[in-house]
Protein backbone atom coordinates (compact mmCIF):
# COMPACT_ATOMS: atom_id res chain seq x y z
CA UNK A 1 0.00 0.00 0.00
CA UNK A 2 1.30 3.42 -0.95
CA UNK A 3 2.09 5.74 2.01
CA UNK A 4 -0.20 8.46 0.65
CA UNK A 5 -3.07 5.95 0.50
CA UNK A 6 -2.29 4.82 4.04
CA UNK A 7 -2.48 8.44 5.25
CA UNK A 8 -5.68 9.28 3.42
CA UNK A 9 -7.30 6.04 4.55
CA UNK A 10 -6.45 6.82 8.20
CA UNK A 11 -7.61 10.41 7.79
CA UNK A 12 -10.94 9.23 6.28
CA UNK A 13 -11.47 6.84 9.19
CA UNK A 14 -10.92 9.67 11.67
CA UNK A 15 -13.25 12.01 9.80
CA UNK A 16 -15.99 9.44 9.52
CA UNK A 17 -16.21 9.32 13.35
CA UNK A 18 -15.98 13.03 14.07
CA UNK A 19 -17.47 13.02 17.56
CA UNK A 20 -15.44 10.08 18.76
CA UNK A 21 -12.23 11.46 17.28
CA UNK A 22 -12.87 14.84 18.91
CA UNK A 23 -13.43 13.22 22.32
CA UNK A 24 -10.28 11.14 21.90
CA UNK A 25 -8.30 14.24 21.08
CA UNK A 26 -9.72 16.09 24.07
CA UNK A 27 -7.47 14.28 26.53
CA UNK A 28 -4.40 15.12 24.46
CA UNK A 29 -5.61 18.71 24.00
CA UNK A 30 -5.98 19.23 27.75
CA UNK A 31 -2.66 17.52 28.46
CA UNK A 32 -0.66 19.48 25.89
CA UNK A 33 -2.34 22.79 26.76
CA UNK A 34 -1.46 22.30 30.43
CA UNK A 35 2.12 21.31 29.59
CA UNK A 36 2.51 24.44 27.44
CA UNK A 37 1.01 26.56 30.23
CA UNK A 38 2.98 25.09 33.13
CA UNK A 39 6.28 25.11 31.27
CA UNK A 40 5.53 28.71 30.23
CA UNK A 41 4.59 29.64 33.77
CA UNK A 42 7.73 27.99 35.13
CA UNK A 43 9.96 29.76 32.62
CA UNK A 44 8.14 33.04 33.30
CA UNK A 45 8.57 32.70 37.04
CA UNK A 46 12.24 31.90 36.61
CA UNK A 47 12.58 35.00 34.44
CA UNK A 48 10.83 37.09 37.11
CA UNK A 49 13.03 35.65 39.80
CA UNK A 50 16.24 36.21 37.87
CA UNK A 51 15.15 39.79 37.22
CA UNK A 52 14.58 40.22 40.94
CA UNK A 53 17.98 38.66 41.59
CA UNK A 54 19.56 41.13 39.22
CA UNK A 55 17.72 43.99 40.93
CA UNK A 56 18.80 42.80 44.36
CA UNK A 57 22.37 42.49 43.22
CA UNK A 58 23.30 39.06 42.04
CA UNK A 59 25.90 40.94 40.05
CA UNK A 60 27.45 41.84 43.37
CA UNK A 61 30.72 40.44 44.74
CA UNK A 62 31.49 40.82 48.42
CA UNK A 63 35.14 40.89 49.40
CA UNK A 64 35.67 40.26 53.09
CA UNK A 65 38.91 40.24 55.03
CA UNK A 66 40.20 36.98 56.45
CA UNK A 67 40.56 33.53 55.03
CA UNK A 68 37.46 31.56 54.17
CA UNK A 69 38.94 28.47 55.78
CA UNK A 70 41.78 27.72 58.14
CA UNK A 71 43.40 24.34 58.68
CA UNK A 72 40.48 23.06 60.73
CA UNK A 73 38.08 24.01 57.97
CA UNK A 74 36.42 26.61 60.22
CA UNK A 75 36.00 30.18 59.11
CA UNK A 76 38.68 31.71 61.23
CA UNK A 77 38.44 35.42 61.84
CA UNK A 78 36.12 35.82 58.93
CA UNK A 79 35.16 39.42 58.39
CA UNK A 80 36.93 40.62 61.48
CA UNK A 81 40.43 40.94 60.08
CA UNK A 82 42.02 44.11 58.93
CA UNK A 83 43.62 42.80 55.78
CA UNK A 84 41.58 44.89 53.33
CA UNK A 85 42.52 48.48 52.79
CA UNK A 86 41.22 51.56 51.01
CA UNK A 87 44.12 51.12 48.60
CA UNK A 88 42.77 47.67 47.72
CA UNK A 89 39.39 49.23 46.95
CA UNK A 90 41.01 51.92 44.78
CA UNK A 91 42.97 49.23 42.90
CA UNK A 92 39.84 47.14 42.37
CA UNK A 93 38.08 50.20 40.94
CA UNK A 94 40.71 50.35 38.18
CA UNK A 95 39.18 49.39 34.84
CA UNK A 96 42.51 47.97 33.72
CA UNK A 97 42.97 45.44 36.50
CA UNK A 98 39.29 44.47 36.86
CA UNK A 99 37.68 45.29 33.50
CA UNK A 100 34.48 43.37 34.29
CA UNK A 101 33.72 45.45 37.38
CA UNK A 102 31.31 48.31 36.89
CA UNK A 103 31.70 49.99 40.26
CA UNK A 104 33.45 49.37 43.55
CA UNK A 105 32.63 50.62 47.04
CA UNK A 106 34.53 49.91 50.22
CA UNK A 107 32.65 50.01 53.50
CA UNK A 108 33.85 50.70 56.98
CA UNK A 109 31.19 50.45 59.61
CA UNK A 110 30.81 51.26 63.26
CA UNK A 111 27.92 51.26 65.66
CA UNK A 112 27.37 54.84 66.65
CA UNK A 113 24.80 56.82 68.61
CA UNK A 114 23.11 59.64 66.66
CA UNK A 115 21.41 62.47 68.44
CA UNK A 116 18.82 65.02 67.42
CA UNK A 117 17.54 67.29 70.10
CA UNK A 118 16.24 65.08 72.88
CA UNK A 119 16.16 61.83 70.90
CA UNK A 120 19.06 59.56 70.18
CA UNK A 121 19.33 56.37 68.14
CA UNK A 122 22.15 53.89 67.84
CA UNK A 123 22.73 52.64 64.34
CA UNK A 124 25.34 51.30 61.97
CA UNK A 125 27.25 54.16 60.38
CA UNK A 126 28.96 53.29 57.12
CA UNK A 127 31.85 55.18 55.64
CA UNK A 128 32.09 54.66 51.91
CA UNK A 129 32.65 56.26 48.51
CA UNK A 130 30.31 58.05 46.13
CA UNK A 131 29.74 54.87 44.12
CA UNK A 132 27.91 53.24 47.04
CA UNK A 133 24.30 53.87 45.84
CA UNK A 134 25.12 52.30 42.49
CA UNK A 135 26.98 49.34 43.99
CA UNK A 136 24.35 48.58 46.62
CA UNK A 137 21.42 49.37 44.28
CA UNK A 138 20.00 52.06 46.55
CA UNK A 139 18.05 55.16 45.68
CA UNK A 140 17.42 58.37 47.52
CA UNK A 141 13.98 59.33 48.76
CA UNK A 142 14.99 62.92 49.54
CA UNK A 143 18.07 65.04 48.92
CA UNK A 144 21.29 63.80 47.35
CA UNK A 145 24.17 61.47 48.10
CA UNK A 146 27.48 63.10 48.97
CA UNK A 147 29.77 64.24 46.16
CA UNK A 148 33.44 63.48 45.41
CA UNK A 149 34.28 66.95 46.65
CA UNK A 150 32.53 66.37 49.95
CA UNK A 151 34.33 63.03 50.18
CA UNK A 152 37.70 64.61 49.52
CA UNK A 153 37.33 67.27 52.17
CA UNK A 154 35.80 64.96 54.75
CA UNK A 155 32.67 67.10 54.89
CA UNK A 156 30.36 66.71 57.85
CA UNK A 157 27.47 65.38 55.83
CA UNK A 158 25.34 62.30 56.46
CA UNK A 159 22.76 60.27 54.52
CA UNK A 160 20.18 58.49 56.68
CA UNK A 161 18.21 55.31 56.16
CA UNK A 162 14.46 55.93 56.19
CA UNK A 163 14.00 53.97 59.42
CA UNK A 164 16.82 55.84 61.14
CA UNK A 165 15.35 59.17 60.08
CA UNK A 166 11.94 58.07 61.32
CA UNK A 167 13.38 57.04 64.71
CA UNK A 168 15.37 60.25 65.18
CA UNK A 169 13.05 62.86 63.70
CA UNK A 170 9.71 61.09 63.50
CA UNK A 171 9.74 61.92 59.78
CA UNK A 172 11.73 61.14 56.67
CA UNK A 173 11.61 64.66 55.15
CA UNK A 174 14.60 65.79 57.18
CA UNK A 175 17.06 67.06 54.55
CA UNK A 176 18.84 70.10 55.90
CA UNK A 177 18.45 69.03 59.55
CA UNK A 178 21.49 68.33 61.70
CA UNK A 179 22.36 65.26 63.70
CA UNK A 180 25.04 65.08 66.34
CA UNK A 181 27.60 62.31 66.76
CA UNK A 182 29.86 62.68 69.73
CA UNK A 183 29.37 66.51 69.90
CA UNK A 184 30.17 66.88 66.19
CA UNK A 185 27.30 68.09 63.96
CA UNK A 186 26.47 66.57 60.58
CA UNK A 187 24.12 67.96 57.99
CA UNK A 188 21.53 65.49 56.68
CA UNK A 189 21.88 65.80 52.89
CA UNK A 190 19.77 62.82 51.87
CA UNK A 191 17.39 60.11 52.99
CA UNK A 192 17.51 56.65 51.37
CA UNK A 193 14.44 55.04 49.84
CA UNK A 194 13.21 51.92 51.61
CA UNK A 195 14.89 48.66 50.63
CA UNK A 196 13.18 46.24 53.00
CA UNK A 197 15.18 43.71 54.92
CA UNK A 198 17.88 41.20 54.14
CA UNK A 199 18.84 38.17 56.18
CA UNK A 200 20.96 40.39 58.38
CA UNK A 201 18.17 42.72 59.43
CA UNK A 202 16.73 46.00 58.24
CA UNK A 203 18.40 47.65 55.26
CA UNK A 204 16.76 50.93 56.22
CA UNK A 205 18.32 51.45 59.64
CA UNK A 206 21.70 52.93 58.77
CA UNK A 207 23.61 56.12 58.17
CA UNK A 208 26.16 56.74 55.44
CA UNK A 209 29.03 59.21 55.53
CA UNK A 210 32.09 59.77 53.30
CA UNK A 211 34.95 57.34 54.02
CA UNK A 212 37.22 60.28 54.93
CA UNK A 213 34.67 61.63 57.38
CA UNK A 214 34.35 58.14 58.82
CA UNK A 215 38.06 57.61 59.49
CA UNK A 216 38.87 61.17 60.55
CA UNK A 217 35.88 61.96 62.74
CA UNK A 218 33.27 59.27 63.35
CA UNK A 219 35.52 56.29 64.01
CA UNK A 220 38.97 57.79 64.40
CA UNK A 221 40.00 55.11 66.86
CA UNK A 222 40.32 52.31 64.28
CA UNK A 223 43.10 51.85 61.76
CA UNK A 224 42.45 54.52 59.19
CA UNK A 225 43.46 52.50 56.14
CA UNK A 226 41.57 49.25 56.83
CA UNK A 227 38.07 48.70 55.54
CA UNK A 228 35.47 46.14 56.55
CA UNK A 229 34.08 45.02 53.25
CA UNK A 230 34.59 45.86 49.60
CA UNK A 231 31.59 45.50 47.30
CA UNK A 232 32.22 45.00 43.57
CA UNK A 233 29.37 45.36 41.12
CA UNK A 234 30.06 43.35 37.97
CA UNK A 235 29.24 44.80 34.57
CA UNK A 236 26.53 42.12 34.27
CA UNK A 237 25.52 38.97 36.13
CA UNK A 238 27.11 36.89 33.35
CA UNK A 239 30.45 38.54 34.05
CA UNK A 240 30.28 37.87 37.77
CA UNK A 241 32.67 34.92 37.54
CA UNK A 242 35.15 36.82 35.40
CA UNK A 243 35.06 39.82 37.73
CA UNK A 244 35.55 37.53 40.71
CA UNK A 245 38.68 35.97 39.17
CA UNK A 246 40.10 39.34 38.20
CA UNK A 247 39.52 40.72 41.69
CA UNK A 248 41.06 37.65 43.30
CA UNK A 249 44.28 37.73 41.25
CA UNK A 250 44.63 41.48 41.76
CA UNK A 251 44.23 41.20 45.55
CA UNK A 252 46.57 38.19 45.77
CA UNK A 253 49.13 40.20 43.83
CA UNK A 254 48.69 43.32 45.99
CA UNK A 255 48.96 41.29 49.18
CA UNK A 256 52.01 39.41 47.89
CA UNK A 257 50.37 36.01 48.22
CA UNK A 258 51.36 33.30 45.75
CA UNK A 259 48.74 30.59 46.30
CA UNK A 260 45.01 31.21 46.21
CA UNK A 261 44.44 28.91 49.20
CA UNK A 262 46.59 31.24 51.35
CA UNK A 263 44.42 34.27 50.56
CA UNK A 264 43.72 36.63 53.47
CA UNK A 265 40.40 37.66 52.00
CA UNK A 266 37.25 35.99 50.76
CA UNK A 267 35.19 36.76 47.67
CA UNK A 268 31.53 35.74 47.80
CA UNK A 269 28.49 36.13 45.59
CA UNK A 270 25.44 37.52 47.31
CA UNK A 271 22.79 35.23 45.96
CA UNK A 272 22.60 32.22 48.22
CA UNK A 273 19.18 33.36 49.45
CA UNK A 274 17.98 33.90 45.93
CA UNK A 275 19.42 30.56 44.88
CA UNK A 276 17.08 29.00 47.39
CA UNK A 277 14.16 30.98 45.96
CA UNK A 278 15.03 29.87 42.44
CA UNK A 279 15.25 26.25 43.44
CA UNK A 280 11.82 26.47 45.08
CA UNK A 281 10.39 27.81 41.84
CA UNK A 282 12.20 25.12 39.87
CA UNK A 283 10.76 22.41 42.08
CA UNK A 284 7.32 23.96 41.69
CA UNK A 285 7.77 23.93 37.91
CA UNK A 286 8.82 20.29 37.97
CA UNK A 287 5.78 19.46 40.10
CA UNK A 288 3.37 21.33 37.83
CA UNK A 289 4.94 19.82 34.73
CA UNK A 290 4.60 16.43 36.37
CA UNK A 291 0.89 17.01 36.87
CA UNK A 292 0.57 18.15 33.26
CA UNK A 293 2.47 15.03 32.17
CA UNK A 294 -0.04 12.95 34.13
CA UNK A 295 -2.83 14.69 32.25
CA UNK A 296 -1.04 13.72 29.03
CA UNK A 297 -0.71 10.13 30.22
CA UNK A 298 -4.43 10.03 30.92
CA UNK A 299 -4.98 11.50 27.45
CA UNK A 300 -2.82 8.75 26.00
CA UNK A 301 -4.78 6.07 27.81
CA UNK A 302 -7.90 7.71 26.39
CA UNK A 303 -6.44 7.29 22.90
CA UNK A 304 -5.72 3.62 23.58
CA UNK A 305 -9.21 3.10 25.00
CA UNK A 306 -10.97 4.65 22.01
CA UNK A 307 -8.68 2.89 19.55
CA UNK A 308 -9.53 -0.44 21.18
CA UNK A 309 -13.24 0.37 20.93
CA UNK A 310 -12.64 1.38 17.33
CA UNK A 311 -10.88 -1.93 16.56
CA UNK A 312 -13.77 -3.87 18.08
CA UNK A 313 -16.35 -1.80 16.26
CA UNK A 314 -14.54 -2.09 12.96
CA UNK A 315 -13.79 -5.81 13.21
CA UNK A 316 -15.87 -6.45 10.10
CA UNK A 317 -14.14 -3.69 8.19
CA UNK A 318 -10.75 -5.07 9.20
CA UNK A 319 -11.84 -8.54 8.08
CA UNK A 320 -12.98 -7.20 4.72
CA UNK A 321 -9.77 -5.21 4.20
CA UNK A 322 -7.78 -8.35 4.96
CA UNK A 323 -9.92 -10.41 2.58
CA UNK A 324 -9.24 -7.83 -0.13
CA UNK A 325 -5.51 -8.22 0.36
CA UNK A 326 -4.40 -5.99 3.26
CA UNK A 327 -1.39 -7.59 4.97
CA UNK A 328 -1.30 -7.58 8.79
CA UNK A 329 1.39 -4.88 8.72
CA UNK A 330 -0.82 -2.70 6.53
CA UNK A 331 -3.71 -2.94 8.99
CA UNK A 332 -1.36 -2.26 11.90
CA UNK A 333 0.10 0.79 10.17
CA UNK A 334 -3.33 2.16 9.40
CA UNK A 335 -4.40 2.05 13.05
CA UNK A 336 -1.04 3.38 14.23
CA UNK A 337 -1.28 6.29 11.83
CA UNK A 338 -4.84 6.98 12.97
CA UNK A 339 -3.61 7.14 16.57
CA UNK A 340 -0.71 9.38 15.56
CA UNK A 341 -2.98 11.72 13.60
CA UNK A 342 -5.23 11.93 16.67
CA UNK A 343 -2.15 12.75 18.74
CA UNK A 344 -0.93 15.31 16.22
CA UNK A 345 -4.30 17.06 15.92
CA UNK A 346 -4.79 16.97 19.69
CA UNK A 347 -1.28 18.32 20.18
CA UNK A 348 -1.77 21.11 17.65
CA UNK A 349 -5.10 22.18 19.17
CA UNK A 350 -3.55 21.89 22.66
CA UNK A 351 -0.65 24.13 21.64
CA UNK A 352 -3.05 26.71 20.19
CA UNK A 353 -5.16 26.72 23.35
CA UNK A 354 -2.06 26.74 25.57
CA UNK A 355 -0.53 29.68 23.71
CA UNK A 356 -3.88 31.47 23.75
CA UNK A 357 -4.14 31.08 27.51
CA UNK A 358 -0.47 32.04 27.90
CA UNK A 359 -1.25 35.29 26.11
CA UNK A 360 -4.51 35.93 27.96
CA UNK A 361 -3.64 34.84 31.51
CA UNK A 362 -0.70 37.14 32.42
CA UNK A 363 -3.02 40.16 32.17
CA UNK A 364 -5.42 38.52 34.62
CA UNK A 365 -2.89 36.93 36.98
CA UNK A 366 -0.07 39.45 36.82
CA UNK A 367 2.44 36.67 36.32
CA UNK A 368 4.80 36.27 33.42
CA UNK A 369 4.31 33.30 31.05
CA UNK A 370 7.12 32.65 28.61
CA UNK A 371 6.09 30.65 25.53
CA UNK A 372 9.17 28.87 24.24
CA UNK A 373 9.14 27.67 20.64
CA UNK A 374 11.16 24.63 21.61
CA UNK A 375 8.54 23.66 24.22
CA UNK A 376 5.81 23.92 21.57
CA UNK A 377 7.68 21.73 19.09
CA UNK A 378 8.50 19.21 21.81
CA UNK A 379 4.83 19.21 22.90
CA UNK A 380 3.58 18.34 19.43
CA UNK A 381 6.24 15.67 18.99
CA UNK A 382 5.32 14.23 22.40
CA UNK A 383 1.62 14.24 21.43
CA UNK A 384 2.35 12.30 18.24
CA UNK A 385 4.59 9.96 20.25
CA UNK A 386 1.78 9.37 22.75
CA UNK A 387 -0.55 8.52 19.88
CA UNK A 388 2.03 6.07 18.55
CA UNK A 389 2.84 4.47 21.92
CA UNK A 390 -0.77 4.07 22.99
CA UNK A 391 -1.81 3.09 19.47
CA UNK A 392 0.61 0.15 19.30
CA UNK A 393 -1.52 -2.27 21.30
CA UNK A 394 -4.86 -1.58 19.54
CA UNK A 395 -3.08 -1.62 16.16
CA UNK A 396 -1.43 -4.96 16.95
CA UNK A 397 -4.81 -6.37 17.95
CA UNK A 398 -6.35 -5.20 14.72
CA UNK A 399 -3.46 -6.71 12.72
CA UNK A 400 -3.84 -10.07 14.49
CA UNK A 401 -7.55 -10.46 13.76
CA UNK A 402 -8.12 -13.54 11.62
CA UNK A 403 -10.01 -12.47 8.48
CA UNK A 404 -12.67 -15.21 8.74
CA UNK A 405 -13.45 -14.42 12.38
CA UNK A 406 -13.48 -10.74 11.55
CA UNK A 407 -15.82 -11.22 8.58
CA UNK A 408 -18.16 -13.42 10.57
CA UNK A 409 -18.52 -10.70 13.22
CA UNK A 410 -22.02 -9.22 13.09
Amino acid at each position, binding site marked *: *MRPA*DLLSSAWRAIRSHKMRSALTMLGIVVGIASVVLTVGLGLGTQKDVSEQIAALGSDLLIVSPGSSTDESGMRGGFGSGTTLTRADADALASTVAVPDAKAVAAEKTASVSLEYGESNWTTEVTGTSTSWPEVRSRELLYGTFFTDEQADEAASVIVLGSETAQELFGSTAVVGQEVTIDTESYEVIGVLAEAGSSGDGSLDDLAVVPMTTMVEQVDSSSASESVGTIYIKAASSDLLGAASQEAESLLLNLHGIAAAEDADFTIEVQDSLLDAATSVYQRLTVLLTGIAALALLVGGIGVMNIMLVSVTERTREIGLR*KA*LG*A*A*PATIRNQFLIEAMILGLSGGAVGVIIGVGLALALPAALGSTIVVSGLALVVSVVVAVGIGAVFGVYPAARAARL*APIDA*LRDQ
Partner: protein
Amino acid sequence: MTVMTSDPLASAAPVIELTGARKTYHTGDIEFEALRGIDCRIFPGEYVAIVGPSGSGKSTLMNILGCLDVLTSGRYVLAGEDVSTLDEDALASARNRRIGFVFQQFNLLSSLSALGNVELPLIYAGVAPAERRARALAALERVGLGDRSRNHPGQLSGGQQQRVAIARALVTEPAIVLADEPTGNLDSHSTRDVLAMLDDLHAEGRTIVLITHEGDVAARASTVYNVTDGQFVGAGTEIAK
Protein backbone atom coordinates in the same frame (compact mmCIF):
# COMPACT_ATOMS: atom_id res chain seq x y z
CA MET B 1 -14.71 -16.25 -25.95
CA THR B 2 -14.51 -20.00 -25.46
CA VAL B 3 -16.25 -21.62 -22.59
CA MET B 4 -14.08 -24.15 -20.80
CA THR B 5 -15.63 -27.28 -19.44
CA SER B 6 -14.78 -29.47 -16.49
CA ASP B 7 -13.38 -32.07 -18.86
CA PRO B 8 -10.22 -33.33 -17.13
CA LEU B 9 -8.71 -33.84 -20.54
CA ALA B 10 -8.95 -30.10 -21.26
CA SER B 11 -5.55 -28.74 -22.13
CA ALA B 12 -5.44 -25.91 -19.55
CA ALA B 13 -4.01 -26.46 -16.05
CA PRO B 14 -6.57 -26.32 -13.23
CA VAL B 15 -7.11 -22.98 -11.49
CA ILE B 16 -7.87 -24.78 -8.27
CA GLU B 17 -6.43 -28.11 -7.24
CA LEU B 18 -7.30 -29.51 -3.81
CA THR B 19 -5.66 -32.77 -2.81
CA GLY B 20 -6.63 -34.60 0.39
CA ALA B 21 -7.81 -31.38 1.95
CA ARG B 22 -8.46 -31.71 5.66
CA LYS B 23 -9.35 -29.04 8.20
CA THR B 24 -9.65 -29.75 11.92
CA TYR B 25 -10.80 -27.15 14.44
CA HIS B 26 -9.88 -27.32 18.10
CA THR B 27 -12.19 -25.73 20.61
CA GLY B 28 -10.78 -26.51 24.02
CA ASP B 29 -10.64 -30.30 24.20
CA ILE B 30 -13.16 -30.75 21.46
CA GLU B 31 -11.88 -31.58 18.00
CA PHE B 32 -14.05 -30.95 15.03
CA GLU B 33 -13.21 -32.20 11.56
CA ALA B 34 -14.78 -29.71 9.18
CA LEU B 35 -13.16 -31.10 6.03
CA ARG B 36 -12.35 -34.77 5.82
CA GLY B 37 -10.29 -35.20 2.74
CA ILE B 38 -11.58 -33.36 -0.29
CA ASP B 39 -10.11 -33.70 -3.75
CA CYS B 40 -11.23 -31.22 -6.32
CA ARG B 41 -9.99 -29.66 -9.55
CA ILE B 42 -11.57 -26.59 -11.07
CA PHE B 43 -10.51 -25.47 -14.55
CA PRO B 44 -10.42 -21.99 -16.08
CA GLY B 45 -13.83 -20.80 -17.23
CA GLU B 46 -15.78 -23.24 -15.07
CA TYR B 47 -18.85 -22.10 -13.14
CA VAL B 48 -18.87 -24.33 -10.06
CA ALA B 49 -21.52 -24.41 -7.36
CA ILE B 50 -20.76 -25.93 -4.00
CA VAL B 51 -23.94 -26.83 -2.17
CA GLY B 52 -24.70 -28.36 1.18
CA PRO B 53 -26.71 -27.82 4.33
CA SER B 54 -25.35 -25.59 7.09
CA GLY B 55 -22.69 -27.36 9.12
CA SER B 56 -21.71 -29.46 6.13
CA GLY B 57 -18.30 -27.78 5.88
CA LYS B 58 -19.03 -25.69 2.79
CA SER B 59 -18.18 -22.45 4.59
CA THR B 60 -14.88 -23.96 5.69
CA LEU B 61 -14.25 -24.99 2.09
CA MET B 62 -15.03 -21.48 0.93
CA ASN B 63 -12.56 -20.04 3.50
CA ILE B 64 -9.88 -22.43 2.31
CA LEU B 65 -10.52 -21.70 -1.37
CA GLY B 66 -10.48 -17.96 -0.58
CA CYS B 67 -7.12 -18.23 1.22
CA LEU B 68 -8.81 -16.88 4.33
CA ASP B 69 -7.78 -20.01 6.22
CA VAL B 70 -5.19 -22.74 5.76
CA LEU B 71 -5.53 -26.53 5.63
CA THR B 72 -4.60 -28.75 8.55
CA SER B 73 -3.31 -31.28 6.03
CA GLY B 74 -3.45 -31.73 2.30
CA ARG B 75 -2.48 -29.48 -0.56
CA TYR B 76 -4.10 -26.47 -2.19
CA VAL B 77 -2.67 -25.17 -5.44
CA LEU B 78 -4.23 -21.90 -6.64
CA ALA B 79 -3.35 -20.76 -10.17
CA GLY B 80 -0.18 -22.82 -10.08
CA GLU B 81 0.93 -21.55 -6.66
CA ASP B 82 0.94 -23.87 -3.66
CA VAL B 83 -0.81 -21.70 -1.06
CA SER B 84 -1.05 -24.37 1.67
CA THR B 85 2.36 -23.37 3.04
CA LEU B 86 2.12 -19.59 2.73
CA ASP B 87 2.42 -17.21 5.69
CA GLU B 88 -0.13 -14.50 6.44
CA ASP B 89 1.50 -11.79 4.33
CA ALA B 90 1.78 -14.08 1.31
CA LEU B 91 -1.82 -15.24 1.80
CA ALA B 92 -2.95 -11.59 1.86
CA SER B 93 -1.11 -11.03 -1.39
CA ALA B 94 -2.63 -14.21 -2.91
CA ARG B 95 -6.12 -13.04 -1.95
CA ASN B 96 -5.42 -9.65 -3.43
CA ARG B 97 -4.14 -10.94 -6.79
CA ARG B 98 -6.04 -14.20 -7.37
CA ILE B 99 -9.44 -13.97 -5.71
CA GLY B 100 -12.44 -11.75 -6.09
CA PHE B 101 -14.84 -12.10 -3.19
CA VAL B 102 -18.60 -11.56 -3.31
CA PHE B 103 -20.17 -11.86 0.15
CA GLN B 104 -23.72 -12.45 1.31
CA GLN B 105 -23.53 -9.23 3.38
CA PHE B 106 -22.06 -7.23 0.43
CA ASN B 107 -19.40 -5.96 2.88
CA LEU B 108 -19.06 -2.52 1.36
CA LEU B 109 -17.48 0.23 3.47
CA SER B 110 -20.21 2.78 4.13
CA SER B 111 -17.71 5.65 4.44
CA LEU B 112 -16.53 5.14 0.86
CA SER B 113 -18.33 5.84 -2.43
CA ALA B 114 -19.03 2.97 -4.82
CA LEU B 115 -15.88 3.97 -6.68
CA GLY B 116 -13.87 4.04 -3.44
CA ASN B 117 -15.07 0.56 -2.55
CA VAL B 118 -14.13 -0.83 -5.94
CA GLU B 119 -10.73 0.86 -5.71
CA LEU B 120 -9.91 -0.81 -2.36
CA PRO B 121 -8.24 -4.02 -3.67
CA LEU B 122 -6.17 -1.91 -6.08
CA ILE B 123 -5.05 0.32 -3.18
CA TYR B 124 -3.73 -2.75 -1.38
CA ALA B 125 -2.07 -3.86 -4.62
CA GLY B 126 -0.26 -0.51 -4.66
CA VAL B 127 -1.75 0.68 -7.97
CA ALA B 128 -1.29 4.42 -8.64
CA PRO B 129 -4.39 6.64 -8.20
CA ALA B 130 -5.03 7.52 -11.83
CA GLU B 131 -4.82 3.93 -13.04
CA ARG B 132 -6.94 2.50 -10.25
CA ARG B 133 -9.61 5.14 -10.77
CA ALA B 134 -9.84 4.24 -14.44
CA ARG B 135 -9.94 0.51 -13.71
CA ALA B 136 -12.53 0.90 -10.95
CA LEU B 137 -14.73 3.03 -13.21
CA ALA B 138 -14.45 0.42 -15.96
CA ALA B 139 -15.46 -2.33 -13.51
CA LEU B 140 -18.45 -0.27 -12.33
CA GLU B 141 -19.50 0.30 -15.93
CA ARG B 142 -19.16 -3.43 -16.55
CA VAL B 143 -21.80 -4.08 -13.84
CA GLY B 144 -23.98 -1.25 -15.15
CA LEU B 145 -23.30 1.25 -12.35
CA GLY B 146 -21.03 3.67 -14.18
CA ASP B 147 -23.40 6.53 -13.34
CA ARG B 148 -23.52 5.63 -9.64
CA SER B 149 -19.78 5.76 -8.88
CA ARG B 150 -20.17 8.76 -6.55
CA ASN B 151 -23.01 7.18 -4.53
CA HIS B 152 -22.33 5.72 -1.14
CA PRO B 153 -23.64 2.23 -0.27
CA GLY B 154 -26.45 3.73 1.80
CA GLN B 155 -27.80 5.41 -1.35
CA LEU B 156 -27.91 2.17 -3.34
CA SER B 157 -30.42 -0.70 -3.32
CA GLY B 158 -29.37 -4.17 -2.14
CA GLY B 159 -29.04 -5.40 -5.70
CA GLN B 160 -26.96 -2.38 -6.67
CA GLN B 161 -24.73 -2.86 -3.64
CA GLN B 162 -24.11 -6.46 -4.61
CA ARG B 163 -23.25 -5.33 -8.14
CA VAL B 164 -20.71 -2.86 -6.65
CA ALA B 165 -19.29 -5.83 -4.72
CA ILE B 166 -19.07 -7.81 -7.98
CA ALA B 167 -17.26 -4.89 -9.61
CA ARG B 168 -14.85 -4.91 -6.66
CA ALA B 169 -14.32 -8.65 -7.17
CA LEU B 170 -13.57 -8.16 -10.87
CA VAL B 171 -11.34 -5.10 -10.70
CA THR B 172 -8.11 -7.02 -9.97
CA GLU B 173 -8.74 -9.50 -12.80
CA PRO B 174 -8.59 -12.43 -10.36
CA ALA B 175 -8.15 -16.10 -11.23
CA ILE B 176 -11.49 -16.92 -9.59
CA VAL B 177 -14.56 -15.08 -8.43
CA LEU B 178 -15.62 -16.61 -5.11
CA ALA B 179 -19.24 -15.87 -4.28
CA ASP B 180 -20.52 -16.88 -0.84
CA GLU B 181 -24.36 -16.96 -0.81
CA PRO B 182 -24.38 -13.85 -3.03
CA THR B 183 -28.17 -13.77 -3.20
CA GLY B 184 -28.87 -14.62 0.43
CA ASN B 185 -29.75 -11.03 1.34
CA LEU B 186 -31.57 -10.08 -1.84
CA ASP B 187 -35.20 -9.99 -2.93
CA SER B 188 -36.21 -12.15 -5.88
CA HIS B 189 -35.84 -9.35 -8.41
CA SER B 190 -32.32 -8.48 -7.29
CA THR B 191 -31.50 -12.18 -7.05
CA ARG B 192 -32.32 -12.63 -10.73
CA ASP B 193 -30.32 -9.52 -11.51
CA VAL B 194 -27.20 -10.74 -9.69
CA LEU B 195 -27.43 -14.31 -10.99
CA ALA B 196 -27.80 -13.00 -14.54
CA MET B 197 -24.65 -11.01 -13.97
CA LEU B 198 -22.78 -14.13 -12.83
CA ASP B 199 -24.06 -15.92 -15.93
CA ASP B 200 -22.64 -13.09 -18.04
CA LEU B 201 -19.28 -13.34 -16.31
CA HIS B 202 -19.26 -17.07 -16.93
CA ALA B 203 -20.07 -16.44 -20.57
CA GLU B 204 -17.06 -14.11 -20.70
CA GLY B 205 -14.88 -17.01 -19.61
CA ARG B 206 -14.37 -16.14 -15.97
CA THR B 207 -13.95 -18.88 -13.40
CA ILE B 208 -16.69 -18.67 -10.77
CA VAL B 209 -17.08 -20.64 -7.56
CA LEU B 210 -20.48 -20.17 -5.98
CA ILE B 211 -21.30 -21.37 -2.49
CA THR B 212 -24.98 -21.72 -1.73
CA HIS B 213 -27.60 -23.83 -0.05
CA GLU B 214 -30.26 -22.99 -2.61
CA GLY B 215 -30.77 -25.56 -5.33
CA ASP B 216 -32.17 -23.16 -7.90
CA VAL B 217 -29.18 -20.89 -7.52
CA ALA B 218 -26.80 -23.84 -7.86
CA ALA B 219 -28.67 -24.91 -10.99
CA ARG B 220 -27.12 -21.96 -12.92
CA ALA B 221 -23.64 -23.48 -12.53
CA SER B 222 -21.96 -25.82 -14.97
CA THR B 223 -20.80 -28.20 -12.24
CA VAL B 224 -22.30 -28.80 -8.78
CA TYR B 225 -20.50 -30.37 -5.85
CA ASN B 226 -22.49 -31.59 -2.85
CA VAL B 227 -20.78 -31.29 0.52
CA THR B 228 -21.97 -33.33 3.47
CA ASP B 229 -20.04 -33.91 6.69
CA GLY B 230 -16.90 -32.42 5.25
CA GLN B 231 -16.79 -34.60 2.16
CA PHE B 232 -17.98 -34.41 -1.41
CA VAL B 233 -20.93 -36.70 -2.00
CA GLY B 234 -20.32 -38.31 -5.37
CA ALA B 235 -18.48 -36.57 -8.15
CA GLY B 236 -19.26 -33.13 -9.49
CA THR B 237 -22.53 -33.18 -11.33
CA GLU B 238 -22.44 -31.50 -14.69
CA ILE B 239 -25.54 -29.53 -15.41
CA ALA B 240 -26.80 -29.85 -18.90
CA LYS B 241 -27.78 -26.50 -20.35
